[in-house]
């Protein structure tokens, strides 16, 4: 549905994105993850035909965003960053305007607008001026506007920024419901959001692609660098020395004390294998007491940070 190949954009001489390549299948929800200034908005602006790329190609539903911009624009719904909408229009007047320029037949307009308002939960505020709505409601109007013509592709730039937790929850459910029939690309810096709503994640940093994968695969891929948390009763210095000698351990850190003689330790291992047995053996050999040992699952947050920092090394 969406094919992006070696997409590069320079602002003057400064690259905003370089050689970004990814695809999104029909019906997929693709998360675009990256810290501030990573190039998420830039990529989305190219995909939505707002500006052309310096190099590379992007196709939506088989149409090139530059050569066949009109065909692409017909097929997408786009919510730009910060939801720019006409503040002096009422919600219904605005959606009516959008429906008109989206080429929706006069007879269908009312039902389609009604459906979009329903989906986004803004039917109750349809008569209000957009400028007087709360941020969350404005955000919903932005999505309703992107939905009104029932597009094949939805491009949403930070759809949950600035919402309260309950609204974020609602927005995620909304996006999940919208997926399935439609291809959705959404950007965010909020990591749990990606694992909750997206089937696949594109991680970019400083304009470069770092990873494209499912959230599960990303976690699995990085699981090999597992952290293990162990609570051991015994002399800390000896324990640290002993455990460092276990094969596979790269780092060990003493954390908080449970009691005088009991501490928790955070153990990093590189090898793609479970080293808990070896650790247990090493502890019991010395007559210390292992009260707890478990693997810490890396959250997407850790993975993200790890990926972003690994790239720098």
């Amino acid at each position: 549905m969406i094919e992006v190949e070696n997409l590069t954009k320079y602002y003057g001489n400064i690259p905003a994105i370089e050689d970004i390549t990814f695809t999104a299948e029909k019906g997929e929800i693709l998360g675009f993850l990256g810290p501030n200034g990573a190039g998420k908005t830039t990529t989305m602006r190219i995909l939505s035909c707002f500006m052309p790329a310096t190099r590379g190609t992007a196709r939506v539903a088989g149409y090139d965003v530059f050569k066949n911009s009109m065909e692409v624009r017909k097929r997408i719904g786009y919510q730009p960053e910060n939801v720019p909408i006409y503040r002096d229009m009422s919600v219904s007047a605005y959606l009516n305007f959008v429906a008109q320029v989206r080429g929706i037949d006069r007879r269908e307009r009312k039902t389609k607008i009604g459906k979009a308002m329903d989906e986004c939960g803004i039917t109750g505020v349809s008569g209000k001026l957009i400028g007087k709505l709360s941020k969350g409601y404005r955000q919903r109007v932005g999505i309703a506007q992107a939905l009104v013509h029932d597009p094949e592709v939805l491009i949403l730039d930070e759809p949950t920024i600035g919402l309260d937790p309950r609204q974020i929850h609602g927005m995620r459910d909304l996006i999940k419901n919208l997926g399935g029939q439609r291809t959705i690309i959404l950007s965010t810096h909020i990591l749990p959001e990606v694992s909750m709503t997206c089937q696949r994640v594109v991680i970019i940093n400083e304009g470069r692609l770092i990873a494209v994968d499912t959230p599960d695969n990303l976690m699995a891929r990085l699981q090999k660098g597992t952290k293990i948390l162990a609570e051991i009763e015994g002399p800390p210095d000896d324990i640290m020395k002993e455990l460092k000698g276990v094969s596979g351990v790269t780092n060990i850190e003493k954390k908080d004390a449970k009691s005088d003689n009991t501490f928790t330790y955070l153990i990093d291992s590189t090898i793609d294998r479970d080293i808990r047995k070896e650790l247990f053996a090493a502890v019991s050999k010395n007559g210390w007491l292992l009260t707890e040992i478990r693997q810490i699952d890396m959250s997407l947050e850790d993975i993200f940070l790890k990926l972003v920092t690994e790239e720098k090394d």
Partner: protein
Amino acid sequence: MVNFYAILKKELGSYFKSPIAYMVIAVFSVISGYFFYSLFALFGVMSVQSMNNPNMQSALNITEEVVGPAFSTMSILVLFMTPFLTMRLFSEEKKSGTIEMLMTFPIKDIEIIMGKFGACFLTFLVMLTPTLFYQAILFILGKPELGPVISGYIGIILLGASFISLGILISTMTENQIIAAVVTFGALLLFWIIQWGASFTGPVFAKVLIQLSIIEHYQEFARGVIDTNDVIFYGLFAFFFLFLTMRSLESKKWRG
């Protein structure tokens, strides 16, 4: 056509939802009303004097003394007022970021530009309507010729359309409405006074300068003469700047 109409409607809506259009129209009506009043009052005084002076009677003509000068002063008012009508057309969208939505809708740039031009032009016509009442008063109280009144309106409408096309171009270049208004006013003024240079340049260049002057072409209309030359000038002027507006929007896309 649907798109053009949608943009037109939206733009007209925002003109009349903000106080700017009302203020511009109010100021225009008051000042143009004052001009009409003073020209007419002056004419009245002169008529009274001419009754005692038979030599003057034949020379006194309401069309020449009131209608002509009224259209001349109206053109100056239009010069001052149109920048305030055009300044927001693209600047506001750029500032609020709505341009990003507008440019990603499946509508052609030309439809956007013509929709905005149309809305501004209609607002301009609304601004002119109070002067129709002043003209009507002249017709009630005196006997002006109808021809010069009609040609005068054709002239002022062409003048306004040209001014608007230049104003739209400038509003695509900045997101600051004040800057858009000031630069538009400056550019219009330059086209207004450009023939001043004709007095000290070579004869060929002088001709060019006079041809370029936006107000030289207007004089004939105010005198009751419709010259196709002048009509073509305003047509080309408007076309040229609307064309540049299109190029400006395109280049914005290129620069990002």
